[in-house]
């Protein structure tokens, strides 16, 4: 199970490719590849986005389902998806907290 991730060129923000070909700011909006054909489709979309200078550092990463939510297998990608573990007030996790509080 894989998703395509990258960093946005203008500000370096971690983003994931969504089903509508936009770059989502949360992992949960990512399109999931369950087979090789979808992985190849995502990889092609990543290369195209790279050439269009939308993003940099494009990579397919492994994810798994955890209580119905997507969770990267590697800690590095879990931290990218959330923010620094020593600063819960920063990164995606902070935006999610604000959204929940609202």
């Amino acid at each position, binding site marked *: 199970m894989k998703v395509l991730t990258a*960093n946005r*060129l203008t500000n370096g923000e971690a983003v994931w490719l969504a089903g509508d070909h936009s770059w989502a700011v949360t992992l949960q909006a990512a399109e999931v590849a369950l087979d090789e054909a979808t992985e190849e489709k995502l990889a092609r979309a990543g290369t195209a986005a790279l050439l269009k*200078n939308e993003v940099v550092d494009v990579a397919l990463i492994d994810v798994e389902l955890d209580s119905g939510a997507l969770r990267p297998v590697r*800690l*590095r990608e879990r931290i990218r998806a959330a923010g620094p*573990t020593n*600063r819960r007030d920063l990164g995606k996790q902070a935006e999610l907290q604000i959204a929940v509080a609202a």
Partner: protein
Amino acid sequence: MYRYDEFDQGFVKARVTEFRDQVERRLAGEITEDQFKPLRLMNGVYLQLHAYMLRVAIPYGTLNSTQLKMLAHIARTYDKGYGHFTTRQNVQFNWPALSDIPAILDELASVEMHALQTSGNCIRNVTADHFAGAAADEIADPRPYAEILRQWSSVHPEFSYLPRKFKIAVTGAERDRAAIQTHDIGLHLKRSAAGELGFAVYVGGGQGRTPMIAKKIRDFLPEQHLLAYATAILRVYNLYGRRDNKYKARIKILVHETGTEELTGWIEKEFEALKDGELTLPDADVQAIKAYFAPPNLPSRPDGDALLREAQADDRNFGAWLRRNVTTHRNPEYAAITIALKGTGEAPGDATAEQMDAIAQIAEEYGANEIRVSHEQNLILPHVARADLKAVYDRLVEFDLHAANAGLITDIISCPGLDYCALATARSISVAQDISHRFASLERQEAVGELKLKISGCINACGHHHVGHIGILGVEKKGSELYQVTLGGSADENTSIGEIVGRGFSAEEIGPAIETIVETYISWRESPEETFLQAYRRLGAAPFKEALYGADAKAA
């Protein structure tokens, strides 16, 4: 402090203009990432996990209050309200947008700062003793020589494409506070028997995946030959350093593979050809640069001792801070103070914009406008009247900057690790926080005594773990963080590389393991005066292995 001349100012401004154009062309899609990446790195811009990171140079760790206020302004305006001071005496901003970086560089240039040569295979920021110009044990201020090296190495055409990065450190005292033996070139400023100034020259130190202690290749190099000798070393390295494998490209590998004697011969031969030529430092120029670093005017303040006796009696915490964070100054009425960016549970080296502003203001009012960044990730006020120490301490308390732990176990060096860094394989800040909480009691820390604990989140060793009395290296193993412990390292004038004590520990186990190591030291030390490092050098690893691994010690 050194002030930019017209050339410096014009050069830095031109580089900002050039980079602004490069960023604009990148954002417009006119140049590719492959074309742009080396250009952004030459201007200190990295891409990390969450965002771009901008590394700003702080030459030999010296700042004035205007510059520190500018760093606070940048943190507040373009970042998320804080910065991270590094083991290279630089500062890093973790969240700038690429589109904002030209504006940040413009703002930095307005206070004579830049991000040049903070990345890439060039000569990096030259570092120096953070107590330079203030320390009572100093032979001479190393910063004029660091500045001469900075001017010589800035966009040096011959040395802008070296096999790998190149780091130089300079110290001016017998007590090495600049870790010179872990640098590509280490310079120890000293006097000859005849009273002449010069340098003991060390080459080939470094950490990373292959830690090496530098070899002394010259016991005394007269100061006027500094650039000729440095050129000879760099020329030999540039010519013979390996370019086939980036992990074997540092000069330490060249020294190791060639042999110190043979390599020294090559360097000396090159030096003979350069000696007494155009690279000889004219005395007038040396004196002109030294004038920039002339000691500040420090008015007589003879009332310090009486005021301190009274203040200590009233405030035990202040007394502890005086014991730990105040260093003897060459002027007995003054002191150098360490502002530990290591409060309980904080990320080592991080400072908020408010804290930076406060320290800059204190430096203006009490510290002759000077601030230093130490390679141990603290800030230093090098010139404070002893009579003002209590007033300064009270101000530091207001901003939670009064941790009295300089040189103790919670004065931890830590790289940003996997919380920020794209190269990291494990977190290091979280381990630092755990240890900081475990040893939060100042009484306990003082009972343990001097202990330098250093943590790196990958084998590149930015957290200097190899030379920690206790070193911790985080790696990824089978998808989890694993922490390897080394003991007995040191980065002073008796530099040593720590030895791996045994199998690694999980994220949950590493804190208790450090407690076990410390308790073992306390139970084995001959007296409270025998430091951890002295005890380890006497005892070796055996009692620590036994305590950590029990009956499995031999297998570990």
